[in-house]
């Protein structure tokens, strides 16, 4: 656990403090995201935790001990740190870069080698990169090395300052997914700084919204913050698509799925018509024998008396049960059938309708 109590940082010569009377409790094993406009004191706050910046007043504890009581270099070796521009050592190979803190802690060579192999796998990098220099890697690969280096001595706490700021949106999304995946396995106490709201709600178990001067405007789970912003600042900071962002937080699997107007291939057209009617639908979905999606047909086009043998149209898009309600909405508004078919590894599970999404937002 990390606690900040009435922390103030007043840089010499500045007219107003960069951070003023900030109190924050960061739970063990969670990702806490500090987000806010540029210059609001995010980096300052983060650096006070590992004493790269000394607070003017107030107290900070990590794992129950006040950081002031420890020699800074010892404290820092127990806190993983990924800085805004990664800061890999250009004169050291990737192997040596990753081994930085174990080297400082004086581990023996065999133990370091073993740990480096573990880490390279953990962050999904190729072993052949170990003997390269940082400039011989792509931006995304360097980010991963930065994360591996911060994790090297298995610190309970990680501080990350815009760790994915320097890569393109696609790679960033992938790295974010990897961080979440990694966190499920390593369960660190992570404090992450970003100025990207989407990144904050995606990664944070808790999100702290800061205003200029390090003023804490709201500190809660992303669901609560997006659902009920504390004030106008938070509301405008979150943006007009706040509702959509919130939908992005709910996975489809939490819904009670509707079965929808679907029949198996081989059903009589009479049955198909009555299924469609009971769902108030003008189309009927057709499933293959192994419950995969075959497609759909307009009810009008069904033979008067016969068997459903094929579908007239294909589904152009669908969602997986791990996807979010935001993804489902995307599918609904872009399809002729106005539903999103939900699959679980290819097998049909049910459908999501606009009504269901509304109902979910309202609760």
């Amino acid at each position, binding site marked *: 656990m990390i606690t900040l109590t009435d922390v103030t940082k007043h840089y010499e010569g500045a007219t107003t403090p960069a951070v003023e009377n900030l109190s924050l409790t960061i739970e063990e094993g969670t990702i806490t995201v500090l987000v806010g406009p540029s210059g609001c004191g995010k980096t300052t706050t983060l650096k006070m935790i590992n004493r790269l910046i000394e607070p003017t007043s107030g107290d900070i504890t990590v794992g129950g001990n006040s950081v002031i009581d420890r020699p800074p270099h010892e404290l820092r070796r127990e806190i993983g740190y990924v800085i805004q521009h990664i800061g890999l050592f250009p*004169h050291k190979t990737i192997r040596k870069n990753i081994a930085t803190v174990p080297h400082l802690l004086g581990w023996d060579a065999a133990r370091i080698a073993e740990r480096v192999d573990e880490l390279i796998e953990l962050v999904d990098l190729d072993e052949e990169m170990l003997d390269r220099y940082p400039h011989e890697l792509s931006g995304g690969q360097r980010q991963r090395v930065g994360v591996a280096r911060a994790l090297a001595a298995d610190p309970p706490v990680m501080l990350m300052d815009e760790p994915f700021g320097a890569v393109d949106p696609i790679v960033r999304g992938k790295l974010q997914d990897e961080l979440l995946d990694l966190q499920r396995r390593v369960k660190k106490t992570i404090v992450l700084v970003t100025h990207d709201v989407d990144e904050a709600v995606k990664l944070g178990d808790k999100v702290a919204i800061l205003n200029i001067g390090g003023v804490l405007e709201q500190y809660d789970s992303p669901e609560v913050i997006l659902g009920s912003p504390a004030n106008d600042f938070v509301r405008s900071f979150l943006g007009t698509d706040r509702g959509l962002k919130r939908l992005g937080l709910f996975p489809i699997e939490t819904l009670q799925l509707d079965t929808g107007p679907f029949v198996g291939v081989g059903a009589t057209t009479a049955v198909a018509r009555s299924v469609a009617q009971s769902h108030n639908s003008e189309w009927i979905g057709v499933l293959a024998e192994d419950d995969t999606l075959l497609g759909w047909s307009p009810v009008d086009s069904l033979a008067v008396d016969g068997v459903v043998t094929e579908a007239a149209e294909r589904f152009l898009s669908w969602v997986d049960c791990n996807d979010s309600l935001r993804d489902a909405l995307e599918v609904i508004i872009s399809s002729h059938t106005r539903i999103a078919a939900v699959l679980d590894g290819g097998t049909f599970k049910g459908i999501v309708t606009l009504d269901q999404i509304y109902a979910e937002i309202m609760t």
Partner: protein
Amino acid sequence: MTTVVAAPLIRWDWVFRNGDKIVERIIEHLILTGLAVGFGIAIALVLTAIILRWRGAYGPITGITGLMYSIPSVALFAFFVPITGITILTAEIALVSYTLLILIRNTIAGLDGVPNDVREAATGMGYTRRRLLFEIELPLALPVIITGIRIATVTVIGLVTISSLIGLGGLGQFILQGLTTFSSPIGTTKIFLGTGLSIVLAIVIDLGLVLVERLVTPWARRVAN
């Protein structure tokens, strides 16, 4: 009636006959250069350490060493001869004082050139001030530091030639002797020999230092490939 026979500029037979003497002069030259650069580096290191500790010392130290750098070597010799006599010490004081500004300025410039994010990452991961300097900052500054050593060394090789003027060894001796017997073919041979060998020595040592730089900075080498 006299016939003027054009004398050859270089008497190679003299060169071959005096091979051992030439080698001796080259070795003297190298020793004088090595001593100057060696002591120069040692003193520059101490002064650089002082600057790193007290940044305010940078101005005064570069001011004084800059002054030493700008005094003509002959004047400096003349100034010290009455005090320290015609000794190696006199020559070395002059030579060392020439290297200091170059060495200190390049070392500081090299250290200042270390990217800030690298320094911050290192500190943030638990490097102490001392280990940061030796394991991160100095290695990264090496190319610039070695450039300083190269300039200092080449300069000193040239100046050692002049130090022969106060009667010390080195290749300058040949030039001095050559000047006193200028009209004879042996005289011109000596002048050419002294000058030419000084230049060759400077070039060879400079190339050697380039090689050293490439060896100690493997990461920089691969940038070019």
